[in-house]
């Protein structure tokens, strides 16, 4: 029994010991092992050296993140000093977060960083500054160079359309007998983002308004056609880096962070290109990650200092070069990383500078029900494309759920819908 106590004490010591001040930083970002290692060994030691504050970085899944913030909020005391998460992670959790309006004003007063105003605005939830922008990301395509041999003639790879994509994937299939197109469809994949932020705006011009419309029906007929050339194993992939590396997929759509590993391991084999355009334009999503201080934070002062450090232009550039997460302060934008991540950055830049862009945002204001929004688009995809149920029937049923969701929550339609 004594030995056990000693071991428990030792375990506790390894966590608590060393350094006078210690805070916990929990994040849904930078969770994969390689990235988390980088944060612990490269990024945070700089902060510790400067301030003497030790930071314990804890990676968490989205559900775990939310559970813990809610639990600590309800209990009134917590362990998490600072939280790092996506815009969508925070929308159901606003009541657990401190208003950072004052802290944000202080940061601006420093004069060395200019946050992109649209991002700051997104961080204002329920009339408080729920989070301060941290990094941005997007979804795009990564292509194995072997696929370029089958590119239909006259197609500009930097201005691809969905029809080009179909023809391309078809070419590859006819030449090799393999379905080399990849859209992630595993349980933790971001398939729904492809549907509501890429397909819908590109084909109908809107995310929500034209959910059940003649344009949408046409779109789904197209997706069913495209699906013939999608690798049958997509349901097992949450991220497309794995099949890109194994060669099972040559053309993949996914979040930049989920494509990155392929490029890092074999930078000479892949290129990154903008997502395709549809009849209405090139629908893309910009995702925003932010930093928030929970109301139950045991050390808001130290957390504020960490926010200052993480949003500093120099740090933003370090993060870009280290893990390929893009800056949110203007002073850091434009710096291109070197080495393998340059491939990814080039693709992101090319996409961002496309002329026919329709930028979609993940809806805010749905609160605890924002997950249902994703579910509706996912289920629609699976029911129409995979289970081959009648398009009209599925669209009208899921459309009713979607309508009800926005009615019941009173949430505004997400851009581009509201800027009609």
């Amino acid at each position, binding site marked *: 029994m004594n030995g056990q106590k000693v071991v428990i004490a030792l375990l506790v010591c390894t966590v608590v010991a060393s350094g006078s001040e210690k805070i916990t930083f929990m994040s849904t970002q930078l969770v994969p092992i390689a990235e988390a290692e980088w944060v612990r060994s490269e990024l945070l030691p700089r902060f510790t050296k400067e301030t003497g504050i030790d930071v314990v970085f804890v990676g968490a*899944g*989205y*559900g775990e993140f*939310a559970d813990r913030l809610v639990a600590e909020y309800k209990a009134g005391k917590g362990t998490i000093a600072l939280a790092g998460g996506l815009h969508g992670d925070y929308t*159901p959790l606003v009541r657990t977060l401190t208003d950072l309006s004052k802290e944000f004003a202080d940061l601006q007063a420093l004069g060395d960083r200019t946050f992109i105003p649209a991002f700051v605005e997104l961080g204002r939830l329920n009339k408080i500054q729920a989070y301060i922008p941290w990094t941005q990301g997007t979804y795009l395509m990564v292509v194995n160079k072997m696929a370029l041999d089958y590119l239909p003639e006259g197609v500009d790879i930097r201005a691809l359309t969905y029809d080009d994509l179909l023809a391309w994937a078809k070419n590859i299939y006819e030449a090799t*007998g*393999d379905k080399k197109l990849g859209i992630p*469809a*595993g*349980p*933790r994949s971001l398939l729904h983002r492809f549907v509501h932020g890429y397909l819908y705006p590109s084909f109908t011009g809107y995310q929500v308004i034209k959910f059940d419309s003649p344009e949408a029906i046409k779109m789904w007929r197209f997706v069913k056609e495209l699906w013939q050339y999608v690798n*049958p*194993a*997509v*349901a*097992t992939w*949450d991220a497309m880096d794995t099949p890109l590396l*194994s060669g*099972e997929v040559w053309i993949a759509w996914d979040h930049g962070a989920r494509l990155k590993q392929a490029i890092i391991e074999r930078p000479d084999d892949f290129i990154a290109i903008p997502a395709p355009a549809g009849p209405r334009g090139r629908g893309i999503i910009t995702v925003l990650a932010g930093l928030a201080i929970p109301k139950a934070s045991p050390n808001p002062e130290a957390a504020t200092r960490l926010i200052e450090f993480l949003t500093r232009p120099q740090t933003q550039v370090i993060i870009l070069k280290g893990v390929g997460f893009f800056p949110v302060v203007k002073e850091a934008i434009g710096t291109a990383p070197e080495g393998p991540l340059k491939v990814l950055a080039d693709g992101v830049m090319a996409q961002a500078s496309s002329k026919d862009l329709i930028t979609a945002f993940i809806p805010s204001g749905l609160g*605890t*029900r*924002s*997950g*249902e929004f*994703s*579910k509706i688009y996912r*289920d629609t995809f*699976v*029911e129409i494309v*995979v289970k081959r149920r009648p398009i009209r029937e*599925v669209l009208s*049923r*899921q459309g009713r*759920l979607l309508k009800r969701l926005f009615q019941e929550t009173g949430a505004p339609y997400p851009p581009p819908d509201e800027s009609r």
Partner: protein
Amino acid sequence: MKTDRLLPYFLILPTIIYLLIFVFAPLSKAVGLAFLTDEGRFTLGYFERMFSDGRFLEALKYTFLLTITIVPLQLITALLIALLINTRFKGSQLFLYICALPLGIADLAAGLILLSIFTQHGHLNSILYHLGFIEKPFYFISYQHMGFVFLSIVLAEHWRATAIVLVILVAGLQMISKDLLEAADVLGAKPWQKLWHVILPLLKPSLQSALIIRTIFALQMFAVVLALGGEIIPVLAGEAYFWYYIYRNNHISAAYALLLMVISILMTWIYLRFLRTRSEMRA
């Protein structure tokens, strides 16, 4: 005499207190989730949303299909292995040890192990290739082959969780008095008669325990399903998990959980009713 009447209550008291604190208290909070809105109004809306969900019927179907496929399969396998061990061949101790190995293996790990076999560049495809059956990897785990996905889940669960049934049955088998079996031999009973008329009836308490445990676990199964099939094959527990963990609606998640609970209670009731043990009959 008085202490004897109170004794059983003293013995079960710690269990009752413990479960009241750690299960029933949080549970009652959770039950409220399924029927009450955040404002505290009574509603059936969460159940309505659950029933109208596009995946609900499929999840219900697959939960039942998986359970009625896996549980009997495990019971039969475990019984056969237990009888094999009971022949007390040389090395049966080592054999029992080997068979009990999966007992310590987490369902997450079992899912990953079976994934390494069934994935398109996995061992099974490689073996089929080397044997000359296929040229290109066969996609066992994909939307096109729901049957294979179902089969791989059954195989994974069968592989992982048969050990617990086995251990319960071996423990039960060794409780059976040898005299009874010898008596059966003396009376000239054939092996299958011995099995049917002596061993199985005496094994009933163990069989009942094993059956109830495995059924309840099979109904709640989702980690293996998730690791192998992702969302291809929906199950009720998986839907509860998704609604809770990904779609962030613990009300609907609670509704799924309640449904699972009702099904589990029904199944248990059926087992207890139709597989009564002797001392219960007397009572």
